[in-house]
């Protein structure tokens, strides 16, 4: 079991040597992730783990990917997606060009969900979806648009519950236990690494989605990231967070108005 002071040593190494700043991550989750990896990879001692993280760049990639949470799904919280369809897409439709940012998108299931909704609303042709994450390896999965086939039954149910009227299985080709999503969806997805801790705003967006990312950050970092989103949204742009995340008590809360019961806010200044 890795102890608290050892976690801090690892975080210091990650920052000093590799430039990854995890010092503002919530510790309880982070400690679980490090201990999980420590036993998964069967390290004989903390010193061994520390050395690998310091010196082995291949292992570093694995370490960063595993201590961050990369669990996501398509159309998670269908009522949230229903609200995007009915309350947000009609506003986006009035624009000549639509820019959407999926911040901390992980393997991209939510990006493809959005692309499907845009296509059904006849908006995909004039949209660009920026998919960013700090892990290059998960972004490779976004690029491929290949997800486990055994998830599709549940995704299909969520899709229908989100107001989808089409045939969900028409959006992918099943092959060898995998579902490969159609190229026309991927064509509008722009992939880039971006670290919410250290990187700045890179464009102006009409909609920013960042769901179940802020829960891993401490309050100060949450506030900094929300300010980054605020600065990256055009006037009357929308911000969407995870179902247990909030703008309440943040420095930017007065700039936003929540649309309804879902975690979607409209920028009002």
């Amino acid at each position, binding site marked *: 079991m890795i102890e608290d002071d050892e976690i801090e040593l690892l975080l210091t190494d990650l920052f000093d040597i590799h430039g990854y700043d995890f010092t503002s991550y919530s510790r*309880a989750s982070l400690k679980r992730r490090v201990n999980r990896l420590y036993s998964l990879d069967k390290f004989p001692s903390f010193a061994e783990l520390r050395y690998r993280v310091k010196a082995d760049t291949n292992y570093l990639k694995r370490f960063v990917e595993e201590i961050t949470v990369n669990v996501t799904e398509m159309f998670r919280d269908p009522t949230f997606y229903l609200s995007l369809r009915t309350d947000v897409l009609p506003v986006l439709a009035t624009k000549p060009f639509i820019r959407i940012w999926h911040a901390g998108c992980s393997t991209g299931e939510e990006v493809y969900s959005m692309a499907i909704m845009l296509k059904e609303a006849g908006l995909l042709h004039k949209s660009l979806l920026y998919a960013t994450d700090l892990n290059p390896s998960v972004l490779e999965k976004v690029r491929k648009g290949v997800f486990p086939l055994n998830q599709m039954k549940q995704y299909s149910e969520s899709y229908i519950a989100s107001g989808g009227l089409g045939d969900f299985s028409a959006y992918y080709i099943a092959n060898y236990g995998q579902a490969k999503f159609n190229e026309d969806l991927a064509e509008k997805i722009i992939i880039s690494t971006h670290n919410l801790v250290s990187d700045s705003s890179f464009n102006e967006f009409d909609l920013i989605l960042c769901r*179940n990312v*802020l829960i891993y950050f401490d309050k100060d970092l949450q506030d900094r990231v929300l300010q980054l989103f605020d600065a990256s949204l055009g006037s009357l742009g929308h911000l969407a967070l995870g179902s*247990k995340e909030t703008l309440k008590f943040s420095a930017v809360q007065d700039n936003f108005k929540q649309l309804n019961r879902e975690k979607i806010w409209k920028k009002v200044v």
Partner: protein
Amino acid sequence: MEESGVKNPVKIVVIGGSAGSLEVLFRLLPLLTKNLSVPILIILHRRSTADSSLSDLLGSKTTLPLQEADDKDQILPGNIYLAPADYHLLVEKDFTLSLDYSEKVNFSRPSLDVTFETVADVYGRSAVGIILSGANEDGTAGLLAIKKAGGLVIAQDPETAQMPVMPQNVINFIGVDFIYGIEEIANYINGLNTSGLHPTGG
């Protein structure tokens, strides 16, 4: 140094349960007295679709403030926090709650083990873990962590549990401190009021 007999203030009670636990809580919660001196966390295996109505339902059974946990909530004495559907509930060193959407543990999210383990880490010997009815083995590893950290473990009497597997598993693998029926569990928690100490059994 042997510390048995040293006064040991209880700072948190964590209740975990699965199938058959809702009925237990319906009977347990109304028995809790108003001036509770500790916070209570409740982790229930539940459907992943977020129906916040469960917290309304449980809240209607008690005079204590009961809410579904939000990210970064401060843990306050006398308050009851329910783990939200489809998130793990964790405890931070500054006595706030945090949420985690990582892999399921024991096929469960929220997982009892995850919460019990972080509570053991933060509260050590000031923690009490209680396991209720359930049909799987989630909770045993977490309660072992509480026990190892010097905390106290109570199992619902399997005789009174709709699904005895979960409390029985804990009893088999951990030296539990008490095996209690529902009323005894309520009495135990209420007993924390006056002393704030681990009440003695019996």
